[in-house]
């Protein structure tokens, strides 16, 4: 019997009936998409549990932390440094934005031709259905794309704890200086919020914890190079999604446990799909929980996803921070270096991303790349044509998909994905 969390949700001021409806859809989707998969690693049981308690036990844990006077910070972007948050004695939670909600309400505030991700972040607030958002002591926005920048101006009127971080758009000396200054400013804001002065030791510890969780995902990624792929792309994506809101130490341990299991599977030549299943790399916009639409279509059409070139995926997690510095400034420099390598499409020019897609396609033995662009996401859609040209000139087939969170184009998408799989597997 599951614990009744209703009083907890009520205390957060949530809309209980709307929230019930959301959880109903989420559970149904998880059953149909995740639990229907075959040959899953046993270790995924942990993530099944996390998902079943996504708005329950984890929220209770966060509220318990709050009772101990620990602050909760919510963010929407991989540029928000968890190291600083942890060093300040607070907890960072990624706010997911992966489903349509309260669309009519949202469209009173945002133009219709805004991407699903931004609309979703508003929908969860306006619909009062996200306990993470409601329990956050501070919400961090960031100046990435124009859509998000402008949306935060409006969002600022809906919450009383929004902090907006500026970000560079060019990988220049000035750009790096801006990023470092913004990290310094954020550090001060975290110190003010928590009342804790960030020390060298605390920052070193924060870096260690975050490096460990990224390293666990690196280990998982490398294991996916095997054929047969030891884990489905859907399951690996879920681990990358849960990365954003689970307890960091527990997350690291759980991913490493799955990796131990996958190593055995690889030795025994066991896979989530048969050997020689066509392998696909997904590249493009982030897929936040519960946006599993495209991976689900791909993996039920006869292919396996072997990597995600995305913020929820390798773009977001790929580099570790050098933790050898002995002063605050050395450590701040070290992780400014680390974050400055993130090749988000808001940067211009952004050759690094294109190079990384090619590297990933080759490293993971992908037979083809599916570029995933959220409708109206200008930065990624603009990059998709040059990316496609680069890949095809190297003989790597690429298909560009533009879609949103709606389900009305699933039939069309399935035909296109199946035809692409036929194309790359003949």
């Amino acid at each position, binding site marked *: 019997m599951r614990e009744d969390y209703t009083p907890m949700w009520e205390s957060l001021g949530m809309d209980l009936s709307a929230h019930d409806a959301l959880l109903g859809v989420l559970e149904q989707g998880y059953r149909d998409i995740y639990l229907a998969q075959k040959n899953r690693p046993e270790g995924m049981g942990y993530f099944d549990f996390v998902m079943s308690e996504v708005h329950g036990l984890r929220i209770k844990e966060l509220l318990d932390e709050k009772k101990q006077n620990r602050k909760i910070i919510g963010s929407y972007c991989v540029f928000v440094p968890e190291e600083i948050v942890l060093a300040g004695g607070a907890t960072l939670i990624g706010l997911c934005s992966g489903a349509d909600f309260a669309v009519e309400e949202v469209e009173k505030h945002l133009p219709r031709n805004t991407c699903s991700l931004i609309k979703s972040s508003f929908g969860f607030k306006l619909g009062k259905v996200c306990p993470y958002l409601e329990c956050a002591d501070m919400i961090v926005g960031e100046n990435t794309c124009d859509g998000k920048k402008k949306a935060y101006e409006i969002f600022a009127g809906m919450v009383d704890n929004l902090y907006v971080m500026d970000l560079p758009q060019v990988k220049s000396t000035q750009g790096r200086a801006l990023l470092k200054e913004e990290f310094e400013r954020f550090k001060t804001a975290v110190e003010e919020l928590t009342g804790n002065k960030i020390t060298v030791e605390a920052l070193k510890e924060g870096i260690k914890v975050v490096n460990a969780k990224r390293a666990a995902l690196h280990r998982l990624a490398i294991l996916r190079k095997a054929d047969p792929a030891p884990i489905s792309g859907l399951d690996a994506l879920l681990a990358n999604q849960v990365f954003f809101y689970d307890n960091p130490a527990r997350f690291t341990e759980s991913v490493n446990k799955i990796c131990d299991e996958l190593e055995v599977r690889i030795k025994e030549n066991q896979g989530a799909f048969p050997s020689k299943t066509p392998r696909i790399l997904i590249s493009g916009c982030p897929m936040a929980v519960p946006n599993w639409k495209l991976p689900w279509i791909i993996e039920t059409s006869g292919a396996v996803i072997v990597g995600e070139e995305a913020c929820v995926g390798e773009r977001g997690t790929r580099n570790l921070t050098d933790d050898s510095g002995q002063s605050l400034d050395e450590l701040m420099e070290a992780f400014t270096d680390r974050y400055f390598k993130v090749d988000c499409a808001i940067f211009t020019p952004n050759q690094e991303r294109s190079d990384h897609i090619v590297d990933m396609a080759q490293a993971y033995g992908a037979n083809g790349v599916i570029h995933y662009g959220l409708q109206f996401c200008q930065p990624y859609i603009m990059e998709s044509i040059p990316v496609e040209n680069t890949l*095809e000139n190297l003989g790597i*087939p690429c298909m560009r998909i*533009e879609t949103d969170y709606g389900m009305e184009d699933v039939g*069309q*998408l399935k*035909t296109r994905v199946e*035809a692409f799989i*036929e*194309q790359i597997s*003949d």
Partner: protein
Amino acid sequence: MICAGIDIGSRSIELVLVENEKVIETRQTDTGFDPISQARKVMKGIKFDQIMATGYGRNLFEVAYDDASTVTEIKAHAAGVRCEFPEALAILDIGGQDSKSIRLNDQGRVVKFEMNDRCAAGTGKFLEIMAHNLGFSLDEFGPAALAAQKDLQINSMCTVFAESEVTSLIAKGQDRQEIARGLHSSVVKRAVGMLNRVGAQGPIVFSGGVAQNPCMVQMMADALGKEILVPDHPQMMGALGAAMIMAAKQ
């Protein structure tokens, strides 16, 4: 060994039987609102050893008939077209509710394709609705447009917007044949764009029901500056390809 291919499209269902690489039977019917009953009807009284389904109803068919296999309409069209035109390197297919462009390599393998997404803009359904609005039957529509002196520009590809554009042109007293030609022209522009996006070169085959429209074929040839190859039964290419793929598997 007799292999069958069935193409369950949004508007029509085609069935082709192949024996020893020769077509021995072709049939066609409307899809209606119950594709599986219609498929049963079209299959009535025929015998085959293996069947492969394609088109948007392929998965429904696979569920209804345990021993059926499926293939996407992209690969099926490529196989069907290469069967009739072994030299083909590109395909434009415009059916009832979708359109696609396909680039093939010398061996006839699909190397790139594009499909319309979400709506039926620029497809057979679009032309059908527009013909109706102008008081033409579908058979009259193409020849009437072809005979027009000039084309009137139509800006909308969306069926709903184009309908109101046509209504206002009619209200201005414009010639309906010229409006018809303008509508064809807008579909052609879109199709040329799709062909360019896959880098279509070399011999191009036009398939799907819309390839039966003489104005579309002529205007495509004019727009591309070369001859367009059209099969005798352009809407049969998907079913033919499915049957040939099935036969090749044996």
